[in-house]
């Protein structure tokens, strides 16, 4: 809190690593809310970004608790409005639209019911369907702001039902005056969405990125485009649709096209201020780079623009017809497209905007079919805007199946700082936090910013409730490692199996294992089956496996939890970087031990990764190995953190690879794990590991009451105010910040 306060005072950015399950969210919320109350002019808004919908809900729950506490202590209604925002899919209450499963379909159908031209048509002709909820909101909702309080997604829906207002647009509208907004990363980082949703958030806001250990990847994904052959074929179809619509419109209603044309000639961006419902297509380029200029003459008329699009698509098709992998820079691409099909850079830059304008003019209400074309237009705009930090890779086939032709064009962003830069520039304080951010100095480098505070916190614990160990060899003294050279070695696989069997015999309830990849998981499980290890394992616990299929995995998870709850005990085999490793918590008996088999390096042969590593090396002087190790260790730490969700929880963390004990890997673990990783536990064999486990579990199984924690990890108000404690806190605060 002290560090956060300093950062807020300094109006600078900060990077905080806080162990999971220690009340990270509550801490952030309570301090920032208190700060907002104390300095209402310096800090007007809190934007809290989380990753998934359940996480957003969790934050809202914490906020509600905090507000209730305020009310109880201060005895009056608090004048603070907090709300969660999600996509239309999660907020729609229209009886038929909300039944749709896919987000894109919901967006498209919503657009077809609420776009301004549809509503204009409805005014003339009652048969045109519109959304009554949006109409209700439009008629009354704007004058009456949401009363103060805390609204999660369900509350918004309920409120919407009651008033017959559309909750989605209500939430979007309310963002401008809400004190606390909770939503997903993409609403700020993805320029396509940020432009629409987060444009009006003032500078005096504080932005919190929670669970931000993957933030660089989110940034990169938001600026990258992937084009396949199928997508291009769909594009051709959409272009034909555009052509016919244009010719129809020319015959029936040529005025509208003329109007658009005139507007473009005048160089007015959007003469009619775009209504919120009409913003279905947007520019993928960051706000600072958008041109304030008229659309070039080559693509001014609708027919010319469609012909232009056709040329672009055909050109990309020819590029996809390669026989070998091609990698080139945006500059090379631009030159080639100029010589082959005579397309200049400037009209290319306007593609996304021109397409949006055309679709608006044509009053096409069903947008779902056009998404491939939109993707291509984004690509065209991005490639002509950014010449640095991007690369184009064309692969004629996948590496795993070189005979099957499946050409893909990757337009890949290499520099994660491009997407996040506007966020850092725009807001006075950006807080990046997670349970696993170590090594901390990597993030400022790859995101290219200067934090004023950069801290890793540890836990104050009444008992040593985590037990990290590095197991480097089996009972037969063969080194355990997932190194590429030894991963097929039966001795290594057998040793991994024995380790799991022996740990499963000693540890009660649930055990979670992480492998480096799905492929590795499958090969290991199949050879365990041959070696009879699976049978041995099933004598102790039930076995569940995570697969790439999300439905299958969630079924496995449900049954895993069931098996743990009724005391049978279970083992879950999953994959680092998979769904289980990100965002699913195994608290208390669900995860008494985590085993990490091997170091989860990324697939290093991927060309996109290679290109990114090269870029990092050239631009930021980060060596390839440093980045790979950093990436592997943050994922390993993320997996280990799954079993530790609070102070009363306890769990074993086994790192089963010889390479973990090297200084460069060990030092990259979060501080709160390193603190408990003693030197004596760094080079164990299976047998020693089990011995230590047993002793430790006996100690942990003793009754643990509130009184034990009092004075150490739990403080009463008197204790907190006592001089001795104050001194201690002061000391720690100073020690920690450097």
């Amino acid at each position, binding site marked *: 809190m002290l560090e956060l306060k300093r950062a807020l005072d300094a109006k600078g950015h900060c990077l905080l690593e806080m162990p999971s399950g220690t009340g990270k969210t509550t801490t952030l919320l309570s301090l920032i809310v208190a700060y907002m109350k104390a300095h209402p002019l310096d800090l007007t808004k809190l934007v809290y970004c989380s990753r998934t919908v359940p996480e957003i809900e969790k934050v809202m729950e914490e906020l509600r608790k905090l507000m209730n506490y305020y009310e109880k202590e201060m005895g009056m209604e608090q004048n603070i409005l907090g709300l969660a925002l999600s996509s239309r899919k999660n907020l729609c209450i229209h009886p038929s639209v909300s039944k749709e499963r896919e987000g894109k379909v919901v967006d498209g159908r919503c657009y077809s019911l609420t776009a301004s031209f549809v509503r204009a048509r409805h005014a003339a002709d009652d048969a045109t369907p519109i959304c009554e909820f949006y109409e209700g909101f439009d008629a009354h909702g704007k004058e009456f702001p949401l009363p103060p309080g805390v609204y999660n997604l369900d509350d918004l829906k309920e409120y919407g039902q009651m008033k017959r207002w559309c909750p989605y647009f209500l939430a979007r509208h309310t963002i401008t005056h809400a004190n606390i907004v909770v939503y997903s990363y993409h609403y700020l980082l993805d320029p396509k969405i940020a432009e629409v949703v987060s444009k009006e958030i003032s500078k005096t806001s504080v932005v919190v990125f929670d669970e931000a250990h993957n933030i660089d990847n989110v940034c990169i994904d938001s600026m990258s485009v992937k084009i396949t052959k199928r997508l291009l074929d769909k594009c051709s179809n959409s272009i034909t649709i555009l052509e016919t619509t244009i010719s129809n419109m020319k015959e029936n209603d040529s005025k509208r096209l003329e109007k658009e044309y005139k507007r473009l000639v005048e*160089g007015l961006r959007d003469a009619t201020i775009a209504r919120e419902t009409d913003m279905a297509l947007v520019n993928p380029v960051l706000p600072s780079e958008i041109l304030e200029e008229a659309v070039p*003459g*080559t693509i001014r*008329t609708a027919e*010319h623009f469609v012909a232009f699009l056709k040329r672009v698509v055909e050109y990309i098709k*020819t590029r996809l017809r390669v026989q070998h992998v091609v990698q080139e820079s945006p*500059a090379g691409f631009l*030159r080639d497209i100029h010589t082959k099909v005579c397309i200049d850079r400037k009209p290319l830059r306007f593609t996304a905007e021109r397409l949006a304008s055309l679709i608006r003019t044509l009053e096409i209400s069903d947008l779902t079919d056009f998404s491939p074309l939109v993707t291509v237009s984004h690509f065209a705009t991005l490639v002509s805007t950014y010449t640095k930090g991007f690369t184009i890779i064309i692969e004629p086939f996948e590496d795993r199946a070189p005979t099957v032709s499946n050409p893909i064009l990757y337009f890949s962003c290499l520099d994660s700082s491009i997407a996040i830069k506007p966020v850092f520039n725009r807001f006075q304080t950006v807080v990046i936090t997670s349970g696993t951010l170590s090594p901390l100095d990597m993030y400022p480098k790859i995101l*290219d910013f200067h934090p004023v505070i950069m801290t890793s916190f540890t836990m104050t614990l009444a008992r040593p409730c985590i037990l990290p160990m590095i197991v480097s060899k089996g009972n037969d003294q063969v080194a355990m490692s997932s190194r590429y050279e030894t991963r097929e070695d039966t001795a290594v696989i057998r040793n991994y199996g024995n380790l799991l069997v022996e740990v499963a015999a000693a540890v009660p309830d649930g055990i979670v294992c992480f492998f480096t990849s799905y492929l590795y998981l499958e090969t290991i499980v199949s050879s365990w089956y041959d070696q009879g290890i699976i049978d041995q394992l099933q004598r102790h616990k039930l076995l569940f496996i995570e697969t790439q299929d999300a439905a299958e995995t969630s079924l496995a998870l449900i049954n895993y939890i069931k098996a743990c709850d009724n005391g049978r005990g279970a083992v879950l085999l999953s994959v680092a970087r998979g769904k289980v490793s990100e965002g699913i918590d195994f608290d208390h008996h669900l995860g008494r031990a985590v085993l990490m088999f091997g170091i989860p390096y990324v697939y290093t042969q991927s060309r996109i990764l290679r290109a990114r590593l090269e870029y990092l090396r050239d631009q930021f002087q980060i060596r390839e190995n440093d980045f790979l190790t950093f990436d592997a260790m943050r994922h390993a730490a993320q997996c280990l953190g799954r079993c530790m969700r609070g102070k009363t929880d306890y769990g074993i963390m086994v790192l089963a690879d010889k390479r973990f004990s090297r200084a460069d890997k060990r030092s990259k673990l979060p501080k709160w794990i390193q603190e408990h990783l003693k030197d004596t536990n760094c080079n164990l064999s299976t047998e020693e590991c089990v011995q230590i486990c047993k002793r430790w579990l006996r100690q942990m199984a003793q009754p643990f009451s509130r009184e034990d924690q009092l004075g150490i990890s739990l403080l009463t108000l008197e204790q907190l105010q006592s001089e001795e404690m104050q001194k201690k806190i002061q000391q720690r605060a100073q020690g920690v910040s450097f």
Partner: protein
Amino acid sequence: MDDYQTCPKCKTTKYRNPAMVLMVNACGHALCESCVELLFAKGSGACPECKCPLRRNNFRVQLFEDPAVDKEVDIRKRILKEFNKRQEDFPTLREYNDYLEEVETIIFNLVFDIDPTNTNKMIDNYKKENKDITQKNRNRQSQEEMELEELLEAEKAQQSEKANLYVNAELEEKKQKHKAREKLIDELMFSDADAKSIVASHVQATAALAKEQPKVAAQPSSVVVKSSKFSSGVQIGLRGQHTNAFLPIPKQEDLPLYRYTAPVFDYDGPPPPPIEKLGKLNYFANIRAANITERAGGYTEAMSCCRALQEALGGLFYSPQLTHKTAVLATNSSTQDTDDMETT
């Protein structure tokens, strides 16, 4: 790939004859290579679809999936050779855009055979009117092209530089390793020292070398990244320069914390009255008051008065014989005296 491509004349598909190559001519209709040879054996003939007269020499391999695009690109290239005015040739952007649209319309008309007589007339007119500019522009690269060229060149230069750097670094490393090993063997052969200690010192030396090595490799390249501009004038390529100035946050784990201690002045005299009290003690009676212009700059008479008093009183107790401590004692005792004096 493209298995469904069919020759409209003989109905051969790419699937049945993988060697088939489709050709297009000025009319934009495709024919396979063998049909072209058959139909145009004399060197000229009519297109089997649109009956327009064609020459065999003008057949080219079809590049795009849609032959119409091939035709369009063909026409476009021809037209753009003539219509090659640049933005610099127009007084305003608006006029340039109008010109671009006109060109686009001409191409569009030619491709879809709309109003061919008028269009051709327009082209001829333009050719006549703008002969000079066309000729001039042919030899001149547009600003945009130049920018792209520049970028590509910089990229190339950077790449070769990098490659050299890494190759050199690697060679160097190898050389050094080799040297170190030779040295070790030499020492083991000729030196009288204990073999163990020699090996140990060698290990240390290599470790030290290994530490130095990465720094060499990680040095930023000397290639200066040119900052270029978008057509709007938005700067790009600044990032490269910026990153050179990037300051990693220093790790301060070992440094002791900075503590503020108030500086001690050796004043050696009775302390002057504080600046706030000068007015009350009636010191201003004897000096000129500050006028309006002086006050505007932040000057007040109190400042000079205070300064004068400090100068007058400082060093009064100084005597070379006394040690520092006694001097301080003396000042302490004398302060009380002066205080008393002033109050009385």
